[in-house]
C-alpha cells in the first residue's frame, strides 16, 4: 500500500494546568491516505482539537507534545521548531478553523488576509495575489468585489467561506477542517462541503475532518476514527464503521444522529453521563462507566486495539458478543439502564 500522506503514531500530548497534567491525547494513531479523507469523530472534550493542534503545532505555552510521531510525507513534524514548520503551514497543510467569528484579524481587510498566505509562500506580485483572491472568493461564493471589506462586515457563514478560501488558496496537500460548519445551517454546510470535494477532486488533496457530527463524516469521508477520552476506540473505512460498528460508544453515537441509517419514527437516544477526567484517567476501559455492556474486566483492564475485520480496528473486550450488543443498542432502555 502506498505511504499515507499523514501518519500519526502513538501521539501523547496535553496541557499543564494548575492541578496537574491533562493528557488530552493519550496514544492516538491514525492515517490520512493520499487523496483520501479521514473523519475524526468524538464529543466535545475528547481531545480531537488537541490532535489538530499537535499536527499544525500551533498551541499555547501550556500545551506539550510528550511523545509519538507525526509523519507527513515521511518527515516527522514533532521535533521541528517554529521556523521549520513554516515551510508546511498554509502551503502543504492548512487549517479551516473552528470559530468563524474570531479567526480573522478585525483590523485588516479580508482580501489582504487571504492574499497574505499567498504572498508568504509564493513569489508573486501583490496584484497577482489579489487576482487569485478574487478568483477564490468567487469560487467559494463570495462577491469578489468585497475583498476590500473588513471581517465585521460579514456574517458568520460568509466569514467561514473566507476561511475556506484562505485554507484552499495554495491548494495544500492536506486540509484539516476543525468543526468547519458547526455554527452554520445545513444548506450552507452542504455548499461548503461541495466546494471542498470539488477541490479535492481537482487537486488530489487529502482532508482530515474533525467533528462531532457523525453524519457529516458519513457523507464526506472515506475512513473514520472514533475518539473517546483521548483515545481512538474504533477505526475503519466509513462503510465499515457505520454498517458494522463494533464499539459500544460508536453504537451510542449512531443513535444520536438521525440522518444515519434510521427510521424516522424512533426517538433520539443519548448516552447518559459524561466522559472521565483526563487528569486522572481510569485504569480500565474509559468508556466503562457509561457502557451498558461493561463487566468487571472492563473496569479493571484497559482493552487493546483488535483488528476485527480487514482494516477495521476496535478497542473493546467484548467484540465477540457484538451481535447481541448491536441489537440491544437500538433500544432506548439499554441506555437508560446506565443512568
Amino acid at each position, binding site marked *: 500500500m502506498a505511504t499515507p500522506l499523514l501518519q500519526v503514531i502513538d501521539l501523547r500530548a496535553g496541557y499543564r494546568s494548575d492541578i496537574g497534567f491533562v493528557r488530552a491525547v493519550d496514544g492516538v494513531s491514525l492515517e490520512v491516505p493520499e487523496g483520501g479523507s479521514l473523519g475524526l469523530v468524538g464529543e466535545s472534550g475528547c481531545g480531537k482539537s488537541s490532535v489538530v493542534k499537535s499536527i499544525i503545532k500551533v498551541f499555547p505555552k501550556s500545551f506539550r507534545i510528550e511523545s509519538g510521531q507525526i509523519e507527513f510525507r515521511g518527515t516527522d513534524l514533532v521535533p521541528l521548531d517554529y521556523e521549520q514548520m513554516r515551510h508546511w503551514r*498554509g502551503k502543504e497543510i492548512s487549517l479551516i478553523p473552528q470559530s468563524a467569528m*474570531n*479567526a*480573522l*484579524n478585525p483590523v*485588516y481587510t479580508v482580501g489582504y488576509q487571504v492574499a497574505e498566505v499567498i504572498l508568504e509562500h509564493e513569489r508573486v506580485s501583490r496584484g497577482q495575489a489579489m487576482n487569485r483572491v478574487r478568483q477564490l472568493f468567487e469560487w467559494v461564493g463570495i462577491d469578489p468585489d468585497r475583498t476590500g471589506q*473588513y471581517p465585521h462586515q460579514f456574517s458568520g457563514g460568509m466569514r467561514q467561506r473566507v476561511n475556506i478560501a484562505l485554507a484552499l488558496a495554495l491548494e495544500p496537500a492536506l486540509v484539516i477542517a476543525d468543526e468547519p460548519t458547526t455554527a452554520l445551517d445545513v444548506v450552507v454546510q452542504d455548499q461548503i462541503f461541495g466546494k471542498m470535494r470539488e477541490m479535492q477532486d481537482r487537486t488530489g488533496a487529502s482532508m482530515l475532518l474533525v467533528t462531532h457530527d457523525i453524519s457529516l463524516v458519513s457523507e464526506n469521508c472515506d475512513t473514520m476514527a472514533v475518539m473517546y477520552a483521548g483515545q481512538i476506540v474504533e477505526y475503519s473505512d466509513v462503510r465499515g464503521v457505520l454498517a458494522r460498528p463494533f464499539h459500544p460508544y460508536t453504537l451510542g453515537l449512531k443513535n444520536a444522529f438521525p440522518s444515519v441509517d434510521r427510521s424516522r419514527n424512533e426517538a433520539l437516544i443519548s448516552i447518559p453521563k459524561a466522559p472521565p477526567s483526563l487528569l486522572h484517567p481510569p485504569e480500565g476501559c474509559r468508556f466503562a462507566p457509561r457502557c451498558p455492556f461493561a463487566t468487571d474486566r472492563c473496569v479493571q483492564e484497559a482493552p487493546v486495539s483488535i483488528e476485527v475485520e480487514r482494516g477495521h480496528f476496535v478497542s473493546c473486550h467484548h467484540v465477540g458478543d457484538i451481535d447481541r450488543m448491536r441489537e440491544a443498542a437500538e433500544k432506548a432502555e439499554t441506555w437508560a439502564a446506565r443512568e
Partner: protein
Amino acid sequence: MRRYLVNRLGLAALTVLFLASVMFILFRMLPGDPTMTVLSPALDREVQEELRRKFGLDRPLIEQYVIYMKSTLLGDFGVSFQHRVSAVTVIAERLWNTLALMVPSLVLAYLIGVLVGAYIAWKRGTKLEEVVTVGAMAFRSGPIFWVAMLFVFAFSVKVPLFPSGHMRTPGYVAEGILATFFSLDFLLHLTLPMTCMAIYYGCYPLLIMRTSMLEVLGEDFIDLAKAKGLSELKVVFKHAMRASLLPIATSVSLLGAYSVAGSVLVEMVFSWPGLGRLMVTAVLDSDYPVAQGAFLLIGVLVILGNLLADLLYGALDPRVRYR
C-alpha cells in the same frame, strides 16, 4: 465619521469657552481692586487709560464679561505687567519652545512604549519581561520633576554629558528658525529633557500595550495567522500589535493631559523657556494677563490634543469607520 468630528469640535469649543469663563470668575475673586487683573502701576499712564477703555473696566460686570470673552477669543489678553508688551507676544514666543520640547518627547514616548511593550508581551514569562514591567511601574511612580532632577544629577552633574538647563547656552544668539531649532547647541540642550520625558511618559503606553498584546495574543486569529505559515515576527508585529493599538489610541488623550502638567514641571527643572514655566513665573509675579493667557493656551493645547486623539481612534478602528 463626519458627525463624530463635528460633535467633538463642538464640545472642544464649549470647553474653551468654559475655561475662559472660569478664569474670568476666578480673577474677579481676588481680594482688592478687580481692575488689578488688567492694570498695574508698572504700566505707563496712557497704556493704563487705553486698557481701561478697551476692557470696559468702569462698566457693569456683564459688559466686562462680554468684552473679555470677545478679546480672549481674538487672542488679546491685555498687556503684560512684567514685559510691558502685549501678553500675546510674550506667550506666542514661548509656545514654540514648549512645542519643540513636547512634540518630539511624546512621539518618542509612544514609539518606545509601543515597541517595547509589544516586545515584552511577546517575551512573557522571561526575566526580561518581569524586570521591564516592574521597572516601568516603579519609574513612572516617582514624580516627574524628581525623576528629571535625577536625570540632571546623573547625566549633567556627576557625568557631565549634557548641559543642565535652559534651551541654549547663554550668549548664543540665534538667527531665524533654522538656527534656533536645528542647531547643535539646541539639540544638546534638548536631549536631556526630551529623553527624560520620553522614557517617563513612555511607561504608560508600554504597560497598556503589554496588557493589550497579552490579550490579543490569546485570540483565535493569532493562531490562524501562525497556521498560515507567517514568521513569528510578522505574527507579533503585524497582526498582534496592530490589533492591540486601540487601547493605546484611547490613552493618548489621557497622556496628553498628564504630559502637559509634566511639561510644566520639566520646564521648571530644566529652566526651559516654555509656556509652562512662563505661566508659573507669571503667577508668582502676579502678572495676570500673561498668567491668564498662558493658562488658556495650555488648555487649548490639551483640548486640541484630545481632538487629535479622537481622530486617531477613529482612524485606527475600522469598526468606527465603516458602520
